[in-house]
């Protein structure tokens, strides 16, 4: 029992952090002490105190309330980018593995083409072209997000495709679509789910990064990246940038621990 706890202790910690943030995002309107966008210039840049646990920002908005509401946008953006990206990428990857020949070449070279660009720069350019806004930023991120899933799904599907159970399914006269969806897909799901979990932290970080650079959310909406950005020049008022930064840090760490644990748990070789 103790060995199992040690092996999965970090994973449980990660799961707890992630779960806590999910709850926060869900309950933000009810647990926030103030409305997130309530400007009060008389209360600007107050130190953390009993009235404002994490202080106030340059417009006198409560940092804690903005932080809690920010969790909604960050997590929503992270989940939509990763889940949609994984969906698109996996579909393309499996298709490539199944088609072989020219179809595979075309799909994989397209994947390579996107992978050629530095992802943040490409997303930045796309987001700037599409215009500021959460949806546009998510779309821009999606464009650079799917290729790694396509690569992974293709290599996993190629391995499964050469397994005898796929040949057996063919000999039984099952339709190709069914073989792809019912036989190959469930067998490559594990590693993709692990990548998704590890990736969520990165997606949230990237989204925050884009917001920090002025893309992403439309002000005055509360978002961690833009909050850090707003506090960037306030060296004396450290709390304005530090707390949203810590929020990003914990959520990324949480997803990483969870993903690592998931990987160990799904790896049959790690089990005894």
């Amino acid at each position, binding site marked *: 029992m103790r060995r199992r706890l040690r092996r999965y202790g970090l994973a449980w910690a990660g799961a707890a952090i992630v779960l806590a943030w999910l709850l926060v995002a869900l309950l933000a309107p009810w647990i926030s002490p103030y409305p997130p966008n309530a400007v009060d210039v008389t209360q600007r840049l107050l130190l953390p105190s009993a009235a404002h646990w994490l202080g106030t920002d340059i417009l006198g908005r409560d940092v804690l309330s903005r932080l809690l509401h920010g969790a909604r946008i960050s997590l929503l953006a992270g989940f939509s980018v990763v889940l949609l990206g994984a969906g698109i990428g996996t579909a393309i990857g499996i298709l490539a593995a199944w088609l072989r020949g020219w179809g595979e070449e075309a799909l994989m070279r397209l994947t390579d083409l996107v992978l050629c660009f530095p992802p943040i720069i490409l997303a930045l350019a796309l987001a700037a072209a599409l215009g500021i806004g959460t949806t546009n930023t998510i779309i821009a991120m999606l464009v650079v997000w799917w290729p790694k899933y396509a690569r992974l799904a293709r290599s996993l599907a190629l391995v499964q495709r050469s397994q005898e159970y796929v040949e057996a*399914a063919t*000999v*039984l*006269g099952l339709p190709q679509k069914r073989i792809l969806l019912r*036989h190959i897909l*469930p067998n490559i799901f594990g590693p993709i789910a692990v990548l998704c979990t590890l990736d969520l932290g990165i997606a949230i970080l990237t989204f925050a990064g884009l917001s920090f650079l002025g893309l992403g959310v439309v002000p005055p909406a509360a978002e961690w990246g833009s909050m850090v950005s707003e506090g960037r020049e306030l060296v004396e008022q450290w709390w304005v940038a530090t707390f949203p930064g810590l929020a990003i840090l914990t959520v990324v760490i949480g997803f990483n621990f969870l993903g690592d644990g998931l990987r160990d748990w799904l790896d049959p070789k790690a089990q005894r």
Partner: protein
Amino acid sequence: MTAILDIRDLVTVFHTDRGPVRAVDGVSFTIARGETLGIVGESGSGKSVTAQSIMRLLEPPARIEAGQVLFEGRDVLAMSQSELADWRGASAAMVFQDSLTGLNPVLRILPQVSEHVVAHGRMAPPAARRHGIDLLRRMGVASPERAAAAFPHQFSGGMRQRVMLAIGMANEPSLLIADEPTTALDVTIQAQILDLMAGLNEKFGTAIMLISHDLGVIGSLCRRIAVMYAGEVVETGPTAEVLADPRHPYAWALAHAVPRLDTPVTARLPSIEGMPPDPLAMPRGCRFAPRCAHRIARCDAEHPPLTEIAPGRSVRCWVTMDGRQLPPPSLPAAAAPPRATEAEAPLLEASDLIKHFPLPRKSLFAKPELVHAVNGVSLQVARGESLGIVGESGCGTSTLARLITRLHAPNAGNIRFQGQDITALGGEALRALRPRLQMVFQDPFASLNPRMRVGQILAEPLRVHGHAAPEERVAALLDMVGLNPAWAARFPHEFSGGQRQRISIARALALDPALIVADEPVSALDVNVQAQVLNLMLELRARLGLAFLFIAHDLAVVRAFCDRVAVMYLGRFVEEAPAAELFATPAHPYTVALLSAVPEPGQRRIVLGGEPPSSLRLPQGCAFRARCPVARPICAEPPPLVEIAPGRRVLCHAPGSLQKPR
């Protein structure tokens, strides 16, 4: 004779999450200087763990908890790490089964052979290099100077196993432990390696401890044998005596479960039902009692000790410890399956099948090289008939199976099934054909989708092809292959290899096929399980009137199952004959050599030199010429297909010129 290795009450325990598993439980045996001891047992019986315990190669969660390992009087279990390093590879060496992972892929051959000669301070590097090349030559590696500079992946499995033996023998150890050294090899290559090991034992006086699941392999090399079951030695004695007159019921079953070249064609094999005991909950009495046909009341209550019944023979059994013998096996031959009438058109007819695969181009402008997998095979299978196809790895049998089932399309040739030309069938027409033409695969672990329950696996083809009430059919199918219908809710990983192969067979039967192509269906199974599955297939064949195309590398297995046999070499049939005739009077020199290479006690071997030629460049003339002991100048011409008797075809210039050794 003094004992070189003396093991006393060795206990090795794996501390798993579910509890301690006593993998080796009180094992004792000795090996005298220059002796050969074989250890036999099914997978999980603890034979490999015993070897690893002797070499102290185990890592947590495994721990040696009790006992002594005395090597020339020194206690191995008490050695420090540096003493161990001095001892291993110098006085005792080990050869592993998998020669691909046993060699370091990024180092050239010679450094791997000579490295530990230098490390043990036996020789200076230049002398060690000369010694290494000399060793490779003595192990029968062709052109050793060139081989020394090669990398492991450039070698075949047989050659790599020779290199492994060269590494093992480099410091002239007094004990060589070989763990399934020939299991991954073809019969003719296996014969070469066994010969080589017998030579090492004779010339250098090296004691050999050979671990194998194959009684034939052990019988042809070892003078003494120890049979292991569930972590214990259950019988030891001189090999010949134990094989002729086994006294432990498990040894008895092992000795009789192996199909032999002299068993009658399509006879049922004795097998023991059930599975080895759960290592977490060993029975209190005899560990074999739950599966034993000779059980008496005492067996369930008390654990039998290893008792000496004759000088040098011990057995762990309450029934035979007073010197009684076990009766010979008596099992009725399977009923003859319904045979097609002469006039009936064959169920399956293939003519001049050719299949080659292009390799990836080496450079942009290079012509792609072709692997010539199947080079002109013609065959016929009648309704209810079983045609066996025998060949070593790489000779094209698996490709042929996939051509017949139309997983691949042939490059040339023609396939007719039930009167329909299926050579170029595709799409819906091919799917409509599938139910009548099924396949059973080799690997019971890869051929079932691990994410589906057994019930789903069996019901899926029924649903797709529009059968009503698949649930009832699934239950009937499981029952037919001897599995509990309630197990339909389980996942494949909850079953043993033999049970999984039964599920595979049930899946192939689901759609009521007329022909089943079985690609090495029992080669991945333990002998006892192999006998169970073969018996099941024989029974189903008789009951359902199925025709089989049965592919195997094991001649004895083919003999046990097939009416007619074809021998394949480099993509062609070299001989085709009724099974009984082929085994009695083989005509092609390759068939003769193949038959003689089957490891059976007392069998005289014709050891073929060399290895099958590459299928990249087909040789001119007879493909077997380079290895043929009776090759003559005319063999440079393509050999004719001669019909030497009705139904007996041989691809040879001089059929019958090589005789079976007596």
